[in-house]
């Protein structure tokens, strides 16, 4: 297959589909040409939700040649909180074929997170199950969960759901809460949710939107500030990885150094063969300031460390400081130094404030090409938030820019290096390697 197709996906996957005029076409092509690669997309944590939903819909309804990928096996290890919005596409597009029903019910009813999700995302989950089972069956489930069914209810439930999951007491409790059947649950989350109908404070620790939903129906006079006080704290969308946290603490003086167990632990997988040069910008600007203090330097150091752990031969050419932010940003000289080592690729990890001098790196890369140096040169920007405008921080049009938000994003960096080396056709073993780099968590 043409590696450009995968590069197009990597370029597109963080952008919502409605903003990609060629997005739907890209999905159709990927499904037709690389169905096994495509089957990973519903579970691709780096992809925008719209891509994951589109891929799931296409995989369930599209024409596939050969063996169908094991979607259940790919989605089962993920938290149900993450897969539920993806599965939501089944209800929204009214996809209720046998494959969709089996995937949705087996995934949801077998998942250990079911009671938690039934408490926190009741409406969304109930809508999905009602769609998969159909209105009549859903009403039947509710009747079967009534206390006075004398065992007939359990028989009905096992006949209806038993082929997807065992109907355990935990599943019955969750279904009762979802269908509105009377129940006194034993699971703490379900108990909290039902108790919050009477006293909102009993729902302390539930997600904010769940509590606001309960407030709207049962406690309209409760102040919003109290709801916010009771709600579970919202975690930052992209929390730093352990290496980034360690480097930040060391750079800011909160810790003497990065703990050895953190430095040792990036990856247990076998290293990829090859020689990689990393130009690591540790100039003064990577110290940043305010809430972003030391973020560019720490994430850059973490990415370099991850690369050293995952590639057999990595040389690092620091710019500015050697172990902490310091001095100016002469990236061009560092790229030249990196090129002397004959690497298979050069990754320039920088915040993009090339001041000595702007444009010199781009000119040096043009010069390197004229001298026959054909290894890819990529700019990697450690980013604090996806909202950052990087347009003025590009090293040059001929140097592809890739933003990283997390130290775990090195998989994509390496996948791009493999793709850049692939030539016109991607070998099957390269495709396997790329799947591992991109999708193995």
């Amino acid at each position, binding site marked *: 297959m043409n590696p450009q197709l995968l590069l197009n996906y990597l370029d597109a996957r963080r952008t919502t589909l409605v903003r990609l005029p060629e997005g739907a076409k890209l999905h159709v092509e990927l499904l037709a040409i690389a169905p096994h690669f495509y089957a990973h997309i519903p579970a691709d944590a780096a992809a925008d939700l719209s891509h994951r939903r589109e891929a799931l819909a296409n995989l369930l309804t599209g024409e596939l040649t050969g063996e169908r990928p094991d979607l259940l096996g790919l989605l089962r290890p993920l938290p149900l909180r993450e897969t539920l919005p993806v599965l939501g596409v089944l209800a929204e597009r009214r996809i209720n074929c046998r494959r969709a029903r089996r995937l949705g019910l087996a995934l949801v009813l077998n998942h250990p997170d079911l009671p938690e999700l039934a408490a926190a995302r009741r409406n969304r989950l109930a809508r999905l199950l009602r769609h998969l089972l159909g209105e009549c069956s859903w009403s039947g489930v509710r009747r079967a969960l009534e206390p006075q069914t004398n065992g007939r209810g359990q028989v009905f439930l096992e006949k209806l759901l038993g082929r997807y999951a065992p109907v355990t007491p935990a599943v019955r409790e969750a279904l009762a809460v979802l269908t509105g059947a009377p129940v006194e649950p034993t699971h703490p989350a379900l108990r909290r949710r039902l108790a919050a109908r009477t006293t909102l404070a009993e729902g302390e620790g539930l997600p904010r939107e769940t509590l606001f939903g309960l407030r709207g129906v049962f406690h309209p006079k409760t102040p919003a500030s109290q709801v916010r006080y009771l709600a579970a704290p919202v975690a930052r969308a992209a929390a730093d990885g352990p290496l980034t946290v360690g480097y930040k603490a060391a750079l800011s003086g909160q810790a003497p150094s990065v703990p050895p167990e953190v430095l040792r632990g990036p990856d247990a997988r076998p290293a990829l063969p090859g020689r990689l040069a990393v130009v690591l910008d540790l*100039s*003064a*600007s990577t110290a*940043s*300031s305010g809430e972003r203090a030391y973020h560019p330097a720490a994430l850059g150091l973490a990415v370099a460390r991850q690369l050293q752990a995952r590639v057999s031969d990595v*040389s*690092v*050419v*620091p*710019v*500015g400081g*050697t172990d902490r932010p*310091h*001095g*100016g*940003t*002469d990236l*061009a*000289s*560092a790229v*030249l*130094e990196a*090129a*002397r080592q004959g690497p298979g690729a050069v990754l320039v990890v920088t*915040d993009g*404030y090339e*001041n*000595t*001098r*702007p*444009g*010199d790196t781009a*000119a*040096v890369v*043009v*010069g*390197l090409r*004229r*001298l026959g140096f054909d290894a890819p040169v990529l700019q990697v920007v450690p980013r604090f938030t996806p909202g950052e405008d990087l347009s*003025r921080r590009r090293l040059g049009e001929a140097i592809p820019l890739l933003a990283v938000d997390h130290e775990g994003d090195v998989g994509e960096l390496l996948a791009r290096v493999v793709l850049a080396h692939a030539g016109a056709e991607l070998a099957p073993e390269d495709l396997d390697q790329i799947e591992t780099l991109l999708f193995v968590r």
Partner: protein
Amino acid sequence: MTTLLERPAPPALAFDGPLRGLRAGAVQAWGALEALALVPERPEPRPQFVAPLRHLKLAGVPSYGTVDLENTAERGLLVVPMHVGFFQEGAQNHATARALVLDAGEVLRVDDAFCVQQAQGGLLKEAQQRFLMLPLGLRPAALAQRGSRGCGRLWEEIDAFTRQYGVARGGHLERFLRPYFPRLQPLRHAFEALPEQVGAAYFVAGRLVGVEVAPNADYWAELAPVLVMYGYGPAALLAEDRGHRAPERPLDLEGLADLDDLAGRLAASRREQAGRYAEEVRRAQALAADAKAEGQRHGLDVATLIGDDWNGQVVSEGTDTVYLSLFRRFSARTLDGPAVSL
């Protein structure tokens, strides 16, 4: 691993006159603004001078136009840079008119400060706070009015300055800073203090507009971000908005032989630019000889240059320059007209 710091430095481009002991270093650039680093030929820590952000405290504002400044250091002289501004919410913001010298622990009453927020009442509160700096476009007028009194004597210039940026009228500097802050802030990251650097010469769209020298590298590391964001940044934004850019210097890549050849051409191009800019600085600093002595404080001489084009102050200890700030008159018309040759 080899670091940049271990690479051979470019040939010395030494200065004389008030910049004696300094040489031109690397040129940094971002947008229309460029800075030629000034580094000492023999680095001296000069510990007798303390850094301003850590040791300058606004001790009080007894009345509009008068500020009390304190050097909080237990030992060491503080040279307060020219035209520092103090901004607080709900109080009249102030800026100073000239360079000042404070001994350790000294509180100095300065009665020729400016109010820079015309319609705001309230006096600034005592605070150990970060300071700003008047933009280049206001500095000649501010220096010319040193020693005089009157809270609002810079309002007319502020009004003319902010109108160049399409900002509402009045003597309100904050009305310029607020909307332009997102564009000014990246400059703080784009220009970085180099090891041992004690000063810089600033160029906007290829024109030399200012030369700044600090007593030591610590002092410079604190002053440089303020200078670039508030002092010279606004001029660069004005230039960019009017379509001016820093001159492009494409690298000659014809007939490249090998990597050494490429590295040599890169170094030569940078050296050539630094040399040419150093020549401009050399001509500008010669004007400092016309500066008139205006007194002495704690053993330091303060001299002021007021000219048609160049203005500034030099604080010196004997023949050694401790602090220097020379700047050019700058406005939108400067950019629209022909390049001014020195």
